[in-house]
């Protein structure tokens, strides 16, 4: 990678911006997990924290790392978390539907 | 220095809490959990003694190796203890209760 010092600095700042963008997703995931009334809505909050929050943080760190090996490893981690969280969230939601847990409605 | 102190005190507190729970609760699964927490406290003290902050040079690898072995051993011991606890409950508990009930009924009718 033939990168001058200026482009490296721009990439670093963009990475910081992405990490700052990813932090509120985690915090809102926790707040949603505590405040939401129902198991399905809590699942919704959880998946946002899993996918988008970690995706933003991985993207920012990959922009800052400056080496292809680290970037590949970060992407691998993100894909693994994505697969694991979607599989387990789907299992939980399907089991809850099979157990006849009613979704929450505004009543 | 303060990190070593903090983590050592945490390990001590964890050991004390685990020992307390091991004494006062009777459910076997909770006893196994308490033993696990106790072992974690001991590992924490051992690693905390080996810690040095970055500029002071490298850390001592011998406690790390011991703790690594200890973690593996504690997991296998936990698996064995869980199997034994399940086995004890399956084989003894129900039949023992039934036998006690059946043994008590003729005694009372005899009176």
């Amino acid at each position, binding site marked *: 990678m033939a990168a001058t010092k200026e482009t490296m600095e721009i990439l670093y700042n963009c990475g910081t911006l992405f990490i700052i963008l990813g932090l509120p997703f985690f915090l809102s995931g926790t707040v949603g997990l505590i405040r939401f009334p129902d198991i399905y809505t809590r699942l919704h909050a959880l998946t946002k924290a899993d996918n988008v929050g970690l995706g933003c943080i991985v993207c920012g760190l990959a922009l800052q790392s400056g080496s292809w090996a680290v970037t590949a490893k970060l992407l691998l981690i993100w894909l693994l978390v994505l697969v694991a969280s979607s599989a387990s969230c789907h299992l939980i939601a399907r089991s809850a539907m099979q157990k006849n847990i009613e979704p929450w409605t505004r009543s | 220095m*303060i*990190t070593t102190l*903090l*983590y050592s005190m*945490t390990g001590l*507190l*964890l050991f004390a*809490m*685990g020992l*307390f*729970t091991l004494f006062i609760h009777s*459910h076997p*699964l*909770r006893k*196994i*959990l*308490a033993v*696990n*927490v106790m072992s*974690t406290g001991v*590992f*924490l003290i051992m*690693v*905390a003694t*080996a*810690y*040095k*902050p*970055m500029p002071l040079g490298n*850390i001592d690898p011998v406690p*790390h190796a011991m*703790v*690594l072995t200890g*973690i*593996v051993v504690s*997991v296998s011991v*936990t*698996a064995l203890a*869980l*199997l034994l*606890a*399940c086995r004890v*409950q*399956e084989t003894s*508990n*129900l039949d023992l209760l039934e036998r006690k009930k059946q043994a008590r009924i003729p005694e009372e009718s005899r009176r």
Partner: protein
Amino acid sequence: MIYSILTLFDIILILTMLWLAWCLLNTEDIFKAVVLFISFGLLMALAWVRMRAPDVALAEAALGAGLTGPLFLSALRRMNRTRKGERRLDSDENREKEHKANQEQG
């Protein structure tokens, strides 16, 4: 600068760990205690990382957080099932009974 931030990190981590351990050792519900134990193993891995022991953290992440939790969950289910007076479905005795019942029906 970075050492004071890391010390603050230590303090929050230690307080969370102690609270978690106290809750897990004193709850009525055993399943809640098992879930708290899984979370406790995760925080322990963070503590090993903080004490510059990444090898121990790797072992703890693989064994403590990944293997012990499912072990406890399986054992909990097996115990709950036998406590309610039901035999294990996969024990030989029960399988023979089911087999006989099926033969009588069929």
